[in-house]
């Protein structure tokens, strides 16, 4: 089948997948997906439940490695180098490609320690002052600083759901990644918290390559400039978000965005 790359202007791909297939045991969850992910834009993956969009997202920082039965074929390049090549250090990869999960998952530590966790394990800060600076910068970028600056020693789990999710984004930012993967980051949040995360994504856009998996087509339309539509493990269509939503090439995309299924 053809994947329509709708006359996108030439951009330098930060990550680029080439004929990627993912298997869980014998079951093929992702079938020959190829896509370029630019730094300049937010890329959204949409599609019905079980279409493989989250699975594909997790191949981008090799989180599928933690599932014993999962197997990846094909090539995924980060700045032109295959992340599945032998000798690739997963630890380094994940420091460059951060991830935010569906349900906020702050560690049961203080707000400060949640942010400091990544810089500590990667040795990014020499001494307390530098670490303090990283924590402050990350919280500011995540738009959480004003709300928590007086209680950095409180537990991260004591924050509200929306704050927890922004804490997780701040935690990902703290190791200064190049790509941030977000797996349905707003699905456990109320509309106001969701709006804040969406604003945050808009602010972070350009500084990091952002890939967001979302269930909500409105959200994809609001936050992304590029959209990929997944269905049954295949990427059906990929293009400018405005084109995908107003003028899709594929009948299945049309059916999905008009609510005929999904």
């Amino acid at each position, binding site marked *: 089948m053809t994947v329509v790359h709708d006359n996108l202007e030439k951009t330098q791909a930060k990550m680029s997948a080439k004929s990627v297939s993912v298997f869980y045991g014998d079951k093929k969850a992702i079938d020959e997906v190829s896509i370029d992910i630019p730094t300049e834009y937010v890329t959204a993956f949409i599609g019905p439940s079980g279409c493989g969009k989250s699975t594909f997202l997790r191949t981008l920082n090799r989180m599928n490695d933690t599932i014993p039965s999962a197997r990846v074929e094909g090539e995924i390049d980060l700045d032109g180098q295959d992340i599945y090549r032998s000798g690739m250090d997963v630890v380094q990869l994940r420091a460059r490609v951060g*991830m935010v*999960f569906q349900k906020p998952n702050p560690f*049961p530590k203080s707000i400060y320690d949640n942010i400091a966790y990544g810089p500590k394990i990667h040795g990014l800060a020499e001494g307390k002052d530098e670490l303090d600076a990283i924590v402050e910068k990350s919280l500011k970028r995540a738009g959480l600083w004003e709300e928590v600056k007086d209680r950095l020693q409180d*537990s991260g789990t004591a924050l509200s759901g929306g704050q927890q999710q922004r804490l997780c984004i701040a935690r990902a930012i703290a190791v200064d990644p190049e790509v941030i993967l977000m797996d349905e980051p707003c699905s456990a949040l109320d509309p106001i918290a969701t709006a804040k995360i969406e604003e945050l994504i808009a602010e972070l856009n350009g500084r990091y390559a952002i890939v967001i998996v979302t269930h909500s087509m409105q959200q994809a339309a609001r936050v992304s400039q590029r959209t990929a539509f997944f269905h049954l493990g295949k990427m059906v269509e990929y293009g400018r978000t405005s084109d995908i939503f107003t003028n899709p090439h594929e009948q299945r995309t049309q059916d999905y965005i008009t609510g005929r299924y999904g």
Partner: protein
Amino acid sequence: MSPAILLLLALGLGLAGWLAARARAWAFRRASPDGRLPSLPNYHAWYVALWIVLPVLAFVALWSAIAPGLVSQSVLASPAAADLPAFGFQRQTMLNEARAVATGAAPAVFNPEAAGLVEPYREALSHYNLIGIVVTLLIAFLGGVWAFLRLRPDFAARTKVERIVMAILLGASLVAILTTIGILASLVFETIRFFGMVSPVDFLFGTHWGPDPMASPENPDSSRYGAVPLFWGTLFIGAIIAMIVAIPLGLMSAIYLTQYANPALRRWIKPALEILAGVPTVVYGYFAALTIAPAIRDVALSLGATNPSSESALAAGLVMGVMIIPFVSSMADDSIAAVPQAMRDGSLAMGATTSETIRRVLVPAALPGIVAGIMLAVSRAIGETMIVVMAASTAANLSGNPLEAMTTVTVQIVAMLTGEGSFDHPATLSAFALGFVLFMVTLGLNFIALSVVKRYREAYE
């Protein structure tokens, strides 16, 4: 014999009541216009059956407590009892003997004086058995009839039965609590008697332990009842040496099993570890006394120790540590496995390695469960007796040298209770005081463990 028969009788009557009530409820149901009742026929049946069985059970419990007394009383009132020795041991022996013959437990009397009592005993027994059976039947009948007469088509039998079941469950849960209170009460009573003879200050802070069961019970030598060497031995063997072995090994095996082992291996190792918990402690005692203790002595000799003991705190502590590995590891295993996968993913996605994730996220998150497991293991270890008896001797010794013989609180409890002393001798009573201290310490440890778990339980969520 009678309680068993009364119980069977009660069950039989209960069954009869059950069947009768069920038949009646079915009749209601057939007669009702829409063929439905608020409660199923079986609930009516259970309602009546419970009203028969429960009062009878209560009566049987009461009756088996008071009937023997009533029997003895009527035997003593008989003319044959006038010849009995007035008091004491002999009198009791004869009564017991006559009772044994009367119930058929013994073929004939040994003391001729008891022969005259057999007949009165037999009479009294059958008399009171008859009373017991009649009253049982009466109670069962009254309960059954009362319950049966209450049955109506719209009777809420379901609610009533549920309420009775709840009461039974409540009773079951009270048994354990009441037993604990009873144990504590009996310990406290004897402990107070002991502290009437030996000052608590001498007992709790004295450093010489050597009660003499042969000494006169009047004015005991308080300086021989200093329990500090025992507390130290218990602490040293159970809480220090054993824990130095059990905590790291237990934790490491839990971490390996939850985070690294493949499922097939885990299926083998986990049950194998748990078998350790099922080995009788006496068997560990053999192992400690016959294998470990001599080996430790030989090593000590070769390292230049002069005259090391063949029994040592180290041997007992090491083996005890191995014994409680499963306690630590299975609690730690459960609590590490209970940390949400999201925590692990979160850490791995930050680029942490598996071991960084374990050290910095999983173990801290699982800490309450791990601490609780350690507390339970400590209270198990300080209550342990057999290994210490066999491997660490019974001689009290206040020493920091693990190669020396030592003893613990539990060992001394056994030694004092099985000694020669009479029951009101301070040496014997000291066992209760020791038991009381041990009880309070383990209670305290369990309390701390529970509050730690409670305080930090919601750490992640």
